[in-house]
């Protein structure tokens, strides 16, 4: 099946500086794609560009086969969007907002909406302005899922929600994905949550994509090595060095990307030895990856 989201060489600026540049991203059909990145890296802006709410300075965006922003409204009919902050009308009640929403989305499933409303314990006559953060989070997710969309775009869907509600929201999302085989794009800084659910990961930093690969590869590919008599030079290293630190005069700690067990030989050739190989969880991998990416940027800038 074709890709659901294809972004190539996207650039955008607010004012003189480019906030986003050379950004390319591919989200395959049926993937649960985790969008990671520190605050201020441009994640929400990228999502807004993806949905046609902002116009790019350069590059192409294609979502569900439609060019964005030109035909964004066609794509949006098949997208369930949950933004970072409540975007619904606070003066409407839950019931009124359901009726409003469903008038715009042809595939809206009334029975599902009702089922989810009960499941999330949302009262029909409650004005949206009176809902707690958790309740409004549930309402936004409920409306998005009731649309039965092919693509879900979620921007920090569980941020600020208490653990119980977070589980409710995630469970509902997982159930939907299993039944509908939809594609999901989740932007979140809750790395461990992303780790459970996502099978693809895209890392953004400073307006650029730093990495994009299957979750398993990302998790297993970044390792921490304890290296004895570490070599000074890095010619033709088969992996990418993200960082190195001397623990003592004889022992280094290296963080590398793209590690395979056979690569021990490379060390052997220069008289070094890999004493230990440790796995990093997604959060540590993410931090190390960013550290490496930023060091490269500085190095390139210095040249």
């Amino acid at each position, binding site marked *: 099946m074709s890709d659901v989201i294809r972004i190539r060489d996207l650039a955008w600026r607010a004012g003189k500086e480019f906030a986003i540049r050379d950004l390319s991203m591919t989200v395959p059909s049926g993937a649960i794609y985790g969008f990671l990145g520190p605050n201020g890296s441009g994640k929400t802006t990228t999502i807004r560009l993806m949905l046609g709410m902002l116009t790019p300075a350069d590059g192409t965006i294609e979502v569900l086969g439609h060019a964005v922003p030109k035909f964004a409204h066609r794509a949006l009919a098949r997208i369930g969007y949950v933004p970072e902050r409540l975007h619904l009308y606070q003066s409407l009640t839950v019931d009124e907002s359901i009726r409003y929403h469903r008038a715009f989305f042809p595939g809206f499933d009334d029975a599902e909406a009702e089922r989810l409303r009960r499941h999330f314990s949302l009262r029909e006559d409650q004005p949206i302005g009176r809902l707690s953060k958790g309740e409004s989070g549930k309402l936004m997710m409920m409306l998005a899922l009731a649309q039965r969309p092919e693509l879900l775009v979620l921007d920090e869907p569980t941020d600020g929600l208490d653990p119980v509600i977070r589980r409710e929201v*995630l*469970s509902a999302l*997982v*159930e939907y994905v299993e039944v509908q085989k939809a594609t999901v794009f989740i932007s979140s800084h809750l790395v461990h949550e992303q780790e459970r659910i996502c099978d693809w990961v895209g890392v953004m930093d400073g307006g650029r994509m730093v990495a994009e690969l299957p979750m*398993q590869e990302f998790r297993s590919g970044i390792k921490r090595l304890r290296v004895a008599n570490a070599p000074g030079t890095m010619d033709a290293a088969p992996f990418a060095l993200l960082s190195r630190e001397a623990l003592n005069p004889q022992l280094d700690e290296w963080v590398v990307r793209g590690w395979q067990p056979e690569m021990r030989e490379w060390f052997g050739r220069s008289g070094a030895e890999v004493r230990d190989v440790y796995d990093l*969880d997604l959060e540590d991998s993410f931090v190390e990856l960013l550290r490496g990416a930023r060091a490269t940027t500085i190095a390139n800038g210095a040249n």
Partner: protein
Amino acid sequence: MFTDIDPRSPTPIYAQIADRLRLAVASGELKAGTSLPSVRALAARLRVNPATVVQAYRELERDSMVEMRQGAGTFVADVGAETKAHERTAAIKRFVRQMLTEASRLGISPADLRAALGRETSSSESL
């Protein structure tokens, strides 16, 4: 039984699920013919990618621990006593390996670990 998985563990999530189920079958916790939760239900309960649950079930089927019947669900297979014993051994081995890796990371030698284990187990037996 379906307590939370640990996303931080180096063991892939599908393996964590599969290992837990394997142990349950080996110990008799899950009897032959019992139906496992649907992919949808288990994925929702654990809040993991449904494909991960499918991967776990497929691995168990490959090892003849379960049967996936189209339309009906996944059922625990009739597993012989020998296989059960083998599984139990394998589970204990995995557990010990994990403990050894963790100990090495903390700078605890195998000898120290063995001594401590001996002390702890004898004191708990006397309780």
